[in-house]
């Protein structure tokens, strides 16, 4: 079909620069704002590169329908949704296989961080709406959701923070964007952890990676996650330190990660 051979895309050039001009261990810019939806108990808005995400938390509240409640713990109901205009072609608004899966894994990741046993018979409802997406949206959803949970005042062991690592053009890189995810040999690993205890709560891998490559990838992920955590921390504190008057000078509302 293709007459002339397609031009080889160079994902990482000789200077270590990527297609987007980033370095191999550089994150896309992150901006988080806490408390953007007044009707919700807690909320957050996150921009991670081109990804734009709203997260809202309601609860702990009565768990309905009642048979889904647990007398031992609060039930986490995580809903990941993509807006119809969040991708180049129109996305069918019906939740598909992918959304159901992401909702499940993200909910389970957050359940590890929340003190669910403090609120028996209740549910904590987390809704995440992806307004714009460009790879790495499940990690963006998780990052925003954990800020929203903290904003709701729900007791947590730790924040949940993540990034994606992977391979494109034979090189291990961090925080892949869409162009890199579409590489013929692309491997994408979303990884989320509790940053203080270094406990991994979400790890998914599709593609093939050697053991050595994985070790290298993990080594790159850890400092990147620390940067994302810092952005979350600043976003939550900015809500209070921004207060009018008083000695502390207002910090900028969003925090640019990297």
């Amino acid at each position, binding site marked *: 079909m293709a007459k002339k051979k397609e031009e080889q895309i160079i994902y990482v050039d000789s200077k270590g620069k990527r297609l987007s001009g980033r370095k191999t261990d550089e994150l896309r810019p992150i901006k988080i704002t806490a408390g953007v939806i007044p009707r919700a108990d807690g909320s957050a808005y996150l921009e991670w590169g081109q990804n734009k995400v709203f997260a809202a938390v309601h609860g702990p509240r009565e768990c309905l329908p009642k048979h889904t409640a647990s007398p031992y713990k609060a039930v986490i109901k995580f809903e990941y949704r993509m807006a119809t205009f969040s991708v180049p072609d129109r996305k069918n608004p019906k939740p598909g296989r992918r959304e159901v899966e992401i909702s499940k894994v993200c909910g389970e990741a957050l359940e590890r961080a929340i003190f669910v046993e403090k609120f028996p018979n209740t549910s904590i409802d987390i809704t995440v709406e992806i307004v714009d997406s460009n790879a790495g949206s499940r990690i963006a959803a998780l990052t925003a959701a954990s800020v929203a949970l903290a904003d709701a005042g729900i007791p947590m*062991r730790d924040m949940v923070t993540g990034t994606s690592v992977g391979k494109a053009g034979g090189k291990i890189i961090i925080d892949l964007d869409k162009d890199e995810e579409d590489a013929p040999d692309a491997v994408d690993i979303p990884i989320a952890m509790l940053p203080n205890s270094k406990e991994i709560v979400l790890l998914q891998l599709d593609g093939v990676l050697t053991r050595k490559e994985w070790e290298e990838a993990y080594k790159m992920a850890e400092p990147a996650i620390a940067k994302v955590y810092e952005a979350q921390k600043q976003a939550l504190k900015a809500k209070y330190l921004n*207060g009018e008057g008083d000695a502390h000078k207002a910090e900028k509302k969003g925090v640019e990660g990297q």
Partner: protein
Amino acid sequence: MAKRLVIPGELVTEERKKLGSHVFVREGKIYSDSIGLVNDEADFASVVPLEGKYMPQMNDVIIGVIISERFAGYGVDINSFYPSFVSKKELREVLKPGSIISAKIMKVNEFNEVELGSIRLFFGGEIIQVTSVKVPRVIGKEGSMLNILKGGTGSNIIVGRNGRVWAKGGNTDLLRKAIEKIERDAHMDHLTDKMAQYMQEQTGGKKPVQENNEEGMFGEGEQ
């Protein structure tokens, strides 16, 4: 700000201390479990949260709204996890959905479900919502903040621990603004002094006429 602001999972102290509220221990160190201000004393560490839902506690006085009527009683929204219930046997007056009552929490079970007692019905007035963790700031030390609010606006005010403030008469618009300001600045020091000044500015130093309708505030409830 004297006190340190922490987020969930942030270290409070590395020393061994008695645990207060909203802290937990991991590997011998004390961490915060919510966003709040650290209260780190010599042998005691706790975090005062800045957000959170109302956790029912025995003997709290709360303000509830009737949401439904059933054969034997009424469903009451108490701004917590579940609605509560008031039996018609304990009431002399007829309530309707939308009626506002104050009640005392007699019992809380392990699911945080409550039993209510000493119910009093309010006539008229309006409700202002506050985050329940900020209610202590609205009341102030020994009611100091509440006195400023009452003095400045001339309203009758009753504060429920569940984050509802009932007010009637006087300058309720000013009260609403003042409470919003308290909520926004709840984490700051010397809030009472600031609010006294704010009230002074807003009212221009004039004492509003205290409307004395204490008699008409409650229905024929108990007490």
